[in-house]
């Protein structure tokens, strides 16, 4: 700010000229910005607006072709959902499974990424192998996992038996089954996080990673205080998507335990499938989907706020 008053008028004119061209530049920038996001936005809208609207709409109806019913019942579906013992049975496990699986995947993923970032021979091969569990089709892994945890013919019991002569029952015991399900899920999906974090590690600016090249105990602290904050946006993004995916899918879990023993590993997403495709109760299934949506929405919004904070820390 200049202290002289005599140039004030000149300043005013100058600033007005600057601001007009600035406006034009801003307008052009905005137009460009919108044009760049348009393809993604439009494409995504095209395939999600109708399903969302349809599901939300249907959730207020009792729509069941088997009973030949299609009528408006307001919030009745939601009331049923809250009182449904099946829903209550599954909600605890859904949350438990999501939290445990996401945490393990993030921690292991970071570790593996760090491992794969080191220089060693056969690194390329190991990186490709790392991705294999995730790269295989879910139906194959689901069936394979079923065999792997088999009492007599499973890989795990065979190894345990060779060492201890004992064969544990994996899928008939509540705790064991939950463990098996979580283990399979982590085994299958951690590679994805590992490879993303590996990509992220490449993007860490040189001067920061030089600082991480400290000997001894300092390295781990450097990892925590330098590398992690740099990777934080990626970590949070991946955590959100991984959590959402956990809540919404059931194929691997179902292939392994069919939701058993009893209902110990039943997921809410399976209830939706059951109500929609096996019972044809489309109205209720839609309400369940909306309920599930509400749950993950919370995760998403909270995650997004954390993400913005981590971006701010980067700048």
């Amino acid at each position: 700010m200049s202290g002289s008053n005599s140039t004030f008028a000149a300043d005013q004119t100058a600033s007005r000229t600057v601001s007009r061209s600035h406006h034009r530049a801003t307008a052009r920038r905005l137009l460009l910005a919108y044009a760049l996001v348009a393809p993604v936005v439009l494409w995504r809208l095209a395939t999600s607006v109708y399903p969302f609207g349809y599901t939300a709409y249907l959730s207020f109806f009792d729509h069941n072709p088997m009973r030949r019913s299609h009528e408006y019942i307001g919030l009745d579906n939601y009331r049923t959902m809250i009182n449904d013992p099946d829903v209550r049975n599954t909600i605890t496990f859904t949350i438990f499974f999501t939290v445990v699986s996401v945490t393990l995947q993030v921690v292991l993923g970071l570790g593996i990424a760090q491992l794969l970032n080191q220089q060693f021979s056969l690194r390329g091969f190991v990186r490709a192998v790392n991705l294999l569990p995730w790269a295989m089709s879910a139906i194959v892994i689901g069936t394979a996992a079923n065999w792997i945890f088999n009492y007599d013919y499973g890989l795990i019991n065979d190894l345990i038996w060779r060492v201890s002569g004992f064969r544990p029952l994996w899928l008939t015991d509540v705790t064991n089954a939950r463990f098996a399900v979580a283990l399979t899920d982590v085994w299958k999906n951690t590679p994805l996080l590992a490879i993303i974090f590996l990509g992220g590690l490449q993007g860490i600016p040189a001067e920061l990673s030089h600082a991480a090249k400290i000997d001894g105990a300092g390295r781990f602290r450097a990892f925590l205080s330098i590398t992690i904050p740099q990777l934080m946006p990626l970590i949070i993004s991946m955590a959100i998507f991984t959590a959402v995916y956990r809540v919404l899918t059931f194929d691997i879990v179902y292939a392994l335990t069919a939701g058993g023993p009893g209902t110990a590993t039943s997921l809410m997403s399976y209830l939706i499938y059951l109500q929609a495709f096996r019972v044809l109760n489309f109205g209720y299934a839609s309400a369940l989907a909306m309920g599930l949506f509400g749950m993950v929405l919370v995760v998403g919004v909270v995650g997004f706020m954390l993400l913005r904070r981590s971006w701010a820390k980067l700048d």
Partner: protein
Amino acid sequence: MHYAAISDSLSRPKGDAYAYKLRRRTISVDRSAPTPDVRLAGERTNGMSKRQELRTPRNGAPFSRRSLLAGAAAGATALSLGSRSRRVSATQGSNGEVNVLYLADQHDHFKTVAEAFTAETGIGVKYETLPSDYLSGQQLLTTRLVAGDTDLDVFWCDDFQSSMYGAAGWLEPLDPIVEEFGIQLDDYVPTLITDVSTWDGALYRLPWTAEPELIFYRTDYFEEAGVELPANWDEFVTVATALTNGSDRYGIGLCGQKAGTLGNEIQHWANQAGGAINALDTEGSKQAITFYKDLFTTHKVAPPSTPQEDYNTVLQGFLDGKYAVWWVWDVFFAAMTTDETFWKDQVSVMVPQMAGPQNAETSIGCWGWAINGFSGRKDQAKQWVEFTSRPEIMKHQMLRGNAPARTSLWADPEYQERAPQLSFMAQMIEGGESPFRARPVTPGIQEIYDAAEQNVHAFLTDQVDLDTAVAQAMEKIRPILERYSAD
């Protein structure tokens, strides 16, 4: 009027028209017309539901003729793929086309049927394979049917689906075809027609297979242990204990995993005690469930991993020589005895079957052909259903290892080699007394199965006691039974 005659022969006391009373609405279905029109009172046409009215062309209408170009295109496609694959994907004909959704072809038996069909009727067969994974197949069918897909004509339909989709009004009633072509329904296993292919008086599916659950056993193990076939449950425990040898050989293989297998097991055991899967609180059912659990916990004639064993793993075990007895669908028996790597002489079927406290029955189910009510090619579809119902065509089931739905074919020695279970099944229905009992299928059967399995499984894995499990299951099952009981 003639419809009443058909319904009499099916021993269903129904009139010509009846009304369902639902919770808040009444709809009426007039079935006195040969081709019923089903109209839903107040059906919404707001674009949400793509339901078309079920309409069938009058009998005798000419087939719609496809252009030669379409036929050539289909042929070209078939050729380009045929050069790489033996699987039939289409046969081309000049009289139109029919889309058939069926399992992956075994031993070319479907190819033979399709080619014979095209040769006789000139209708091309467009063959789509049904995923062998039941869940995915269910998803595929439900999606296409609920959306009123006109491209789906005939599909391979099981017991549960025929009542479910039939009740939803998505299937074309087959009674007119039976009547028009004079299909001898009394040649079929009666319970398969009346109990699992018909819903509310209309026949929705024509069975093509007859699949009973048979108790088969290792003859060599029985000889080795020096035991005879058990006549009842108590004898069975003794026999099985003699056959069990530590953890290498068990008396019986039990499939206690959820997702369908446990439900079937509950049903066949409970039925022998006078209960059923939808009546778990009866003494018979409770006795059967307790007995089932005792087999692998108290008597230890089945492995402790029973609650996680399904058909695949027990099959593997049986091939490995782990089990002496297995009470399961007949097709497994055929798979074992007709394949060179298995044993022809070491496996046999218990006839007569061992009896429970009330009877010596066993479950029977079937798969068959159903016509999509929204199909755009109903005439061709009807021809297919009629064609496949012929005895000489049905025989091709045996190539696949399945028993055909027509009982007159069971005694044919020439085909018993291909489907060895036929000789035993023929024995079982000798003298008119049939031990075959269909599962208690209603449109709500899937829900019932899930509720029963969930709770019984929790009992089997020591999470709850029997009374709690049964009570919780029946709490879910009772409203379903009320909802779908025939008026």
